[in-house]
C-alpha cells in the first residue's frame, strides 16, 4: 500500500513537472529579431510626371505635377533591410525647415549620392547632410525616423541628368507607415503642400510592411 502510494505520488509529481516545464518553455520563449531578405526599391523623382525619363506617364491627369514614380505605395517585408535607389531628376527648391537637410534613420547614418557639381562634372560620395537650399525633395518616413534629403540637379548638369541617391533602412514589424516630402513642391498650392503633396501617386505614399 505504501509503495503503491509512493508510485502514484511520484507519478503525479513527474506529470505536473512535465506539464509545467512544457508550458513554461513556451511561456518563457521570446522571439528574437526576425531577419528577412534585403529588398531593393528603385524610385524616380521628377518635376513633371508626364516627362519622366524612366517611367513617364504622358496620359496622367496632372502631367505637370511632381511625383515619385512608378508608384508611391511600397510593399516591403518586415524586419528587413530596404535598399533604396532614388533617381532624382528635379532641380532644387529648398527646404522650408533647414533641419530636414540632415540624413536621419538610415543604416549607416548617411546616404551615397552621385551628382553633378557646379561645373557640370560628375561627382559622388557619402553625405550626412546637404545644403538646405539645394534640396529638391525629401524621402521621409516619420514613424520610422527616416529622413533623407534629396539633392537637386545642378543647373550646370548635362541635359536629362539625374542625381542618384542610395541608402538603406530597416523595417520594423508589420504595419502601414506614411511617407512624404518636406519640400513644399506642390506648386500653385497653399504653402506648396497641396496638390501633388497630398495625392497618392505623386508625393504622398505609404510603406506597407507585411
Amino acid at each position, binding site marked *: 500500500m505504501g509503495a503503491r502510494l509512493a508510485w502514484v505520488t511520484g507519478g503525479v509529481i513527474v506529470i505536473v513537472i512535465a506539464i509545467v516545464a512544457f508550458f513554461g518553455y513556451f511561456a518563457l520563449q521570446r522571439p528574437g529579431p526576425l531577419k528577412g531578405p534585403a529588398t531593393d526599391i528603385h524610385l524616380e523623382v521628377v518635376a513633371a510626371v508626364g516627362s519622366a525619363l524612366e517611367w513617364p506617364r504622358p496620359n496622367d491627369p496632372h502631367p505637370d505635377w511632381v511625383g515619385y514614380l512608378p508608384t508611391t505605395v511600397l510593399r516591403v517585408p518586415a524586419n528587413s533591410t530596404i535598399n533604396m535607389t532614388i533617381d532624382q531628376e528635379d532641380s532644387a*527648391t529648398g527646404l*522650408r525647415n533647414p*533641419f530636414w537637410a540632415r540624413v536621419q534613420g538610415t543604416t549607416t547614418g548617411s546616404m551615397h549620392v552621385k551628382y553633378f557639381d557646379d561645373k557640370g562634372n560628375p561627382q559622388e560620395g557619402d553625405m550626412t547632410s546637404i545644403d538646405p537650399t539645394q534640396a529638391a525633395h525629401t524621402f521621409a518616413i516619420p*514613424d520610422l525616423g527616416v529622413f533623407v534629403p534629396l539633392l537637386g540637379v545642378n543647373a550646370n548638369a548635362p541635359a536629362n541628368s539625374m542625381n542618384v541617391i542610395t541608402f538603406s533602412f530597416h523595417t520594423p514589424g508589420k504595419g502601414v507607415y506614411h511617407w512624404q516630402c518636406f*519640400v*513644399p*513642391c506642390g506648386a500653385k498650392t*497653399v504653402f506648396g503642400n497641396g496638390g501633388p*503633396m497630398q495625392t497618392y501617386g505623386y508625393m504622398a505614399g505609404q510603406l506597407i510592411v507585411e
Partner: protein
Amino acid sequence: MATRTANPSRPHVIRVLIPWIILTVAGWIAVSFIHFPFDLSVQGQDQARTLLIMTYLATPVFMGVVVMLVYSGIVFRRRPGEQLVDGLPVTGNTRIQATWIVVSLILVLSLAVLGITTLISSQAAQAIGAAGRAIGGEGETGAAIKETGSELQVQVIAQQWYFTYRFPDYGGVETTHLELPAGVPVEFHVTSLDIIHSWWAYQLGVKADANPGVDNQFHMTPRTTGSFTVRCAELCGIWHGEMADTTGQVVSQGDFNTWIAQQQSYFAEIQKALPSYGPYYFPAPLTKGS
C-alpha cells in the same frame, strides 16, 4: 373604465429615494475607478482632480434625474383603457422649493469656487490659459522670447506633417522628439511654419494652437517620469491623422542632460544651417518656384 386615484406622496418619495441612493453609491464607486490620463504634469493633475470632484458632485444629480424619469414613466404611465384626465392641481410646497433651491445653490457655488480656485492657481491658470488660447485666442504675436530664469524654454515648431522642437537654452538645437526633465517648469513657445496645427500632449494636460507668425506661449511643469503622446488636434491635410509621436518622455534631470547632449552632438552638423532662434519664422520658399 378605470380612473386612477392619486397615491399619497410619501410612498413615491420612498420608492424614488431608495433606488436613487443605491444608484448614487454605485455611481460613486464607478467614478472611483476613473483615471484621467492627463496627470503627468502638475497642471494636468490639478485639472484631473477638479474634474473628478465635479464628477462626484454631478453623480447624485444625474442619478436623481434618471430615477425620476424612469419612475415617472413606469408609475404614471397611461394604462390601456385608462381615462385621460388631468393630474391633481399643484399648489406648491414651500419646503420642497426651498430645499431644491438651497441644494442647487450650494452645488453650483461649490463647483464655481472649485473651478475658479483651480483656474487662478498660479500654475494651472497658465496651462488652462494656453488651452483657452487654443480655442479662439490669438496668442502673443511677435513677443520677444523672455528670460525667465529657471524655466526650461522649449519651442514647438509645427509643419506639414511633423512637430520638431528647439531648445534655446542649449544652443537652439532642434530635435525630432521631445524629452522633458521631471520637476522642472517649462515655458513652451508654439508656432507653425505653414498652416494652423495644434500641439496636443494629453498626458501632460496641455494643448495649444500652432499658428504661422504667432508665438503661442504656455507654462507647464512635468510632475513625474513617464511617456506621453503628441498629436495634432487641428485638421491640417492628408497626413493630419499621422501627425503623431508616441515617443515623448518625461525623464530625470540626469537622463535629460544626457539626451540633450546627444541631440546637440548628432545635429551639430545641421545646426549652422538653422535660422537664429526666434519667436516664430517666415521661412522661404513658400512653394516651389516662388
